[in-house]
């Protein structure tokens, strides 16, 4: 019994250390956002202030970067989600001998370091745009969208593939037996089935794009996204405005997570209620089942 208690205490201690490691740095940074010194300092706490937040709102470079990031994020969603969908569907239909090569090719961007995707995109398009005379395409927006989509499409393909694994082929066959054409099956059965995956792939794609640094920093050329602006700032030196920005991001995250959790609980409740009524109805009509 005693050794059991020691074991439990050790596990508890480990979990405590683990989450301290996870949250400690962020909490410390959060504190510096409200402290008065010009250098991000958590201890000693010299005085409470909101001035770093006020400075943030006046920071034009950050706001321009934010706009660029959002634009690129939307672009990436528009490219990566349809491509991921198409790639997942082709995976289910491709000639079996070609399948492993195909899989290797389309999954490789996930396993390639981000800087290499950025570098290869820039080098390739620099020459292609100069041969074809389409020099206007050699700009940061276009290249970043392409470079990021290279691996984000693979992410979204994996999302679609995991959903497709649960797809019941019988549905498709039933529709075909009832006289539907293949395009009709695609439009009315496969796409509605994949709809939740479209949503999660879009969210994932946008966040992955927004967050990305390694690919972007090469592909962005003269433009700046929020993340590359931040990276430049942090390298130059540190001011509490960055802490303030982080606090805002964390706050948005927490609010988002809470909303998500509340919605999920509500939906769960609804689903449980529906199941309960269905069960009750079934129990009330045993004759129909028997007949």
């Amino acid at each position, binding site marked *: 019994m005693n050794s059991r208690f020691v074991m439990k205490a050790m596990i508890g201690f480990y979990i405590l250390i683990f989450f301290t490691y996870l949250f400690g740095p962020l909490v410390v940074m959060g504190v510096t956002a409200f402290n008065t010194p010009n250098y991000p300092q958590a201890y000693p706490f010299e005085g409470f202030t909101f001035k770093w937040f006020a400075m943030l709102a006046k920071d034009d470079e950050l706001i321009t970067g934010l706009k660029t990031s959002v634009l690129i994020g939307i672009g990436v969603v528009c490219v990566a989600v349809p491509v991921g969908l198409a790639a997942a569907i082709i995976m289910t239909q491709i000639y079996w001998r070609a399948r492993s090569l195909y899989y290797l090719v*389309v999954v490789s961007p996930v396993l390639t370091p981000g800087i290499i995707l950025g570098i290869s995109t820039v080098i390739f398009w620099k020459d292609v745009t100069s041969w074809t005379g389409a020099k206007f395409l050699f700009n940061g927006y276009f290249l970043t969208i392409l470079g990021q989509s290279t691996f984000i499409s693979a992410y979204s393909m994996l999302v679609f593939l995991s959903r497709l694994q649960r797809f019941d082929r019988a549905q498709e066959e039933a529709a075909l037996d009832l006289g539907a054409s293949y395009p009709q099956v695609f439009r009315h059965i496969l796409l509605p089935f994949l709809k939740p995956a479209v949503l999660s792939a879009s969210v994932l794609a946008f966040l992955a794009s927004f967050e990305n640094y390694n690919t972007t920093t090469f592909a962005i050329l003269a433009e700046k996204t929020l993340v590359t602006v931040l990276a430049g700032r942090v390298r130059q030196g540190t001011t509490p405005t960055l802490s303030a920005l982080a606090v805002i991001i964390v706050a948005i995250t927490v609010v988002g997570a809470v909303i998500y959790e509340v919605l999920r609980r509500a939906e769960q409740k609804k689903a449980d209620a529906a199941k309960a009524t269905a069960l009750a109805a079934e129990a009330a009509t045993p004759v129909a089942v028997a007949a």
Partner: protein
Amino acid sequence: MIEVGKYLIFLGPLIVIAVFWAMATVERRQSGEPGAKSFFGRNGIAISVFLLAAVGLWAIIMIVLPQLYMVDFSFHPKLPPRDYGGPNDHYTLDSYRYFIFGSTTSMDHLNVIHLKAFFMTIFASIIVTAINFCICYPMAYYMAQVATPERLRLFMLMLIAPFWVNEILRAFAFRVLFGTSGLINNFLLGIGVIAEPIDFLGLDVAMYTGLSYAYLLMMMFPLYNAIESLDRNQIEAARDLGAPWWHIHLFVVMPFAKPGIASGCTMVFMLTAGALAAPLILGGPNTLWFTPIVYDRFYQAFNWPQGSAYAFILLLTCVVFVLAVLRVFKVSLGEITR
């Protein structure tokens, strides 16, 4: 303007696709099954065109061609743009020679700085991966096998939450923590353990801590997924038969979770070896990390072929590492990216 190498690059993928397509058509004809339909017959023209165009553009123009092109580019000398395809444009090993010898002509000295950085990066990435595994394994096991559903949900949320803050700001947080007038130094000075602030950034303590932190989830989730599908009864059985706890982990849980371990380790290794933000922000002035050197080849030295060569070396190393892990753990690529 485009020489032979370029033709190969552009036509190669198309030939591969054509060969597979022809094989598929021939086999379908020979099998003579009435139900077998061609790709176009099956999807309808409009959808087929969409599928092929989307995947074709992606796989060929975005994945394969840029990579091949980058490799080709690394074997060219550094030239001003107007000399492309001119008489000076020929295949050369200059960039690779520079990587090893620090000069494109002399072979007298090794390029100690770059070689050291390269091997340090590989070595440090392996260490970071191992540390990550040690940190995550108990947690993954606890969540997968011990925790109650409510606690599991809470832990999941708590795990993901810090990773919503972006990479740069997370690195910044470590800078705040480890700086010469950061919290840790102030604390240590305050309790009198040290008389002078310790330069954690210069000693790369901050960088390694930040790198281990950065890719924690990439290790956590594959491990969790793998351990979660293990039947509790197997653990109970081992325990009933008198296996000590470390036996259970070493001979029951870990062999079962092998694909998850392999997946987590490859992901963390690749991401760490290719990490740019943490080394740039947290690395000291004398830090040896390979990616900032690649970055400098491009945007400080403006030697793009050399940058490509360095990038290719990094890529090759990662590929070799993945293949080695697959071999050692005896798992397939499909299991890793699941």
